[in-house]
């Protein structure tokens, strides 16, 4: 009888290594498949990071061809943490009508940046998650013209940060945009929002929410769409109201995607720079990454810049731990 003799037809070049792979243990298999990713990361991420860490242990050498001086251990970090490092630009709010809450003008730059970064990250991720979830729920429905609504909601994410910054810069530019008047009419902003730290912070926040909510919406939508529709039938028959279906089925099942989205949004928000640069400027709303850039570009204090980068990473890793704990226990979870 014509029995199955064709299993090993593997003529293609790939077939042989693939077949070899199949016979390996799960562990070997995993490592082999991870190799391309780690190769890429090693070249472009791990190697530079190790270098950067090495740089952060060296002294700045502003005035010599080699930007790095002798080995000084953790001094750069110590100086940063004790506020001994001074930057060419310090956080100043020239508007006298307000001052930034919690951190004064004279606070060390790192402290200011830390405050701005954390406040921004928490607020932006919070709002983006809520709004993004709302958008995703809308996009999850079946309705006429859905594809266009989807595109519309995703559009902000497709606009480059610089342009997004430009839009909001122009909107709040006193002679061009109507944003300031509108906000004043709402009783929120002072005269020159773009030079007031508080107002600028809000502008940056809103601009970021406007843009990156789409990111959350897109990812959450994908999560929603992957849920087995049959489970809703079961829940309905079990007596679940729409809210309960959301609470007990949708939310837990979309949680992995949601957490991934939030995790990366948080990390991204904590590295905010481009948007600030394009609207209010790093001087008005300094973030941790602003510090890195200032040290990197304005004064060629690359060792200090490296140290700030690592401090930023440490702060971010603190947040990430929270997510990892949340992801634990989830399918495909981390820890």
């Amino acid at each position: 009888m014509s029995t199955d003799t064709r299993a090993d037809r593997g003529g293609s070049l790939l077939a042989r290594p693939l077949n070899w792979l199949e016979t390996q243990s799960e562990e070997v298999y995993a490592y082999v498949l991870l190799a391309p990713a780690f190769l890429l990361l090693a070249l472009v991420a791990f190697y530079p990071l190790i270098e950067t860490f090495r740089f952060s242990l060296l002294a700045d050498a502003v005035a010599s061809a080699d930007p790095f001086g002798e080995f000084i251990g953790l001094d750069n970090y110590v100086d940063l943490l004790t506020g001994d490092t001074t930057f060419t630009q310090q956080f100043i709010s020239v508007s006298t009508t307000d001052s930034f809450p919690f951190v004064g003008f004279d606070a060390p730059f790192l402290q200011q940046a830390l405050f701005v970064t954390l406040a921004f990250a928490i607020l932006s991720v919070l709002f983006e998650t809520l709004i993004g979830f709302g958008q995703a729920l809308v996009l999850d429905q079946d309705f006429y013209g859905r594809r266009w609504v989807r595109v519309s909601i995703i559009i902000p994410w497709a606009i480059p940060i610089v342009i997004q910054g430009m839009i909001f810069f122009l909107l709040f530019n006193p002679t061009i945009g109507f944003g300031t008047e509108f906000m004043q009419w709402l009783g929120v902003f002072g005269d020159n929002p773009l030079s007031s730290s508080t107002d600028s912070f809000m502008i940056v926040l809103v601009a970021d929410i406007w843009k990156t909510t789409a990111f959350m919406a897109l990812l959450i939508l994908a999560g929603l769409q992957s849920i087995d529709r049959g489970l809703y039938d079961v829940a309905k028959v079990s007596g679940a109201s729409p809210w309960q279906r959301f609470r007990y089925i949708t939310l837990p099942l979309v949680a992995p995607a949601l957490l991934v989205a939030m995790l990366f949004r948080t990390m991204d928000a904590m590295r905010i720079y481009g948007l600030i640069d394009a609207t209010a400027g790093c001087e008005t709303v300094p973030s941790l990454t602003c510090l890195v850039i200032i040290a990197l570009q304005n004064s060629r204090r690359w060792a200090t810049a490296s140290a700030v980068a690592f401090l930023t990473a440490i702060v971010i890793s603190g947040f990430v731990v929270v997510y990892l704990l949340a992801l634990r226990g989830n399918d495909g979870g981390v820890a």
Partner: protein
Amino acid sequence: MASVNLEGITKRYEDVTAVDDMTLDIEDGEFVTFVGPSGCGKSTTMETIAGLTLPTEGTIEIGGRDVTNLPPKDRGISMVFQNIALFPHMDVYDNISFGLRLRKYDQEEVDRRVEEAADIVQLEGMMDRMPKEMSGGQRQRVAIARAIVRNPGAFLMDEPLANLDAELRVHMRTQLQRLHRELDTTIIYVTHDQAQAMTMSDRIAVINSGVLQQVAPPLECYNEPKNLFVAGFIGSPAMNFIAGEVVDDGFVSTYANVDFDPATQGVTAGQEITVGIRPEDIYLAENAEKAASPTKAFDAVVDVIEPVGKEVNAYLLFDRDVEASAEGRGEGQLLINLAPDTEIDEGDDIQIVMDRENIHLFDQSSGEAITHSLE
């Protein structure tokens, strides 16, 4: 607890009519089983009753209330799904207690009921397993427990025991019957297991291609099938059919002629009929006395012998010339049940008699039953 009334329910998918003008009244506390070939519309009917799918036409009443447009949660039902559909993110306890927690029962009550349900389905000690760590049968039992843990007006159960072994199945059957008795709940049940259908149901609803064929108590369906379809579908192994024609003093067919008085049976000479006789109503001629009213003996040849434990199925040919069809029983083939100790071999020539009392006649063109006994 709740009557269920279907009135002219039709469900059409694009090019398939899954349920066709079904009208069915299920009484409060009744146990009705839907049976029918694969794809005949059983699950679709269930889903319509549950409110998971809206009927294209027709109305549904549960407990006397028109629920056609009510969402499932307000219909007071619970359901075991054919595809099991456990919540993959919840462990067994959470799956079972889902409906209770939705209703904010207090913890103690939830625990008590879950324990009880787990006990019924014999899943004690598995409370914190996740669905994907369980075997097929275990999952199915969780699904059953999830349905019975609540006390709704009606249970809908779509093949709840398909993946369970015989012993568990018998156990579950008993338990479901007990539940049914104790809670006096209406149960609508789908099964492909004839034994289940027979033993559990108050009535059986036989469906074919979306059309209701007969709704009657199990034995009535068995003994007095309304038409050829029901006759062939109910009973396993299935009834034997012989195509024939009514003559003045009985019927004739290529292989078997039986004499009876057409007048008393409501047939007329010349009518094309199909004769139906169940395997257990055919006896070896030597045991003719076991038949209540044996016919004359016919010759037959033993084609295949199939022992099934407590009995033996023998496939007979009326004639050595009949070609044994590879599948099912063709014209001129018969299946009979024999005691396991009967001394008989494949190829033997034997003589058989039928029990006139259990010979069914069907009109060949309409398929409708004419009589269920020639006595």
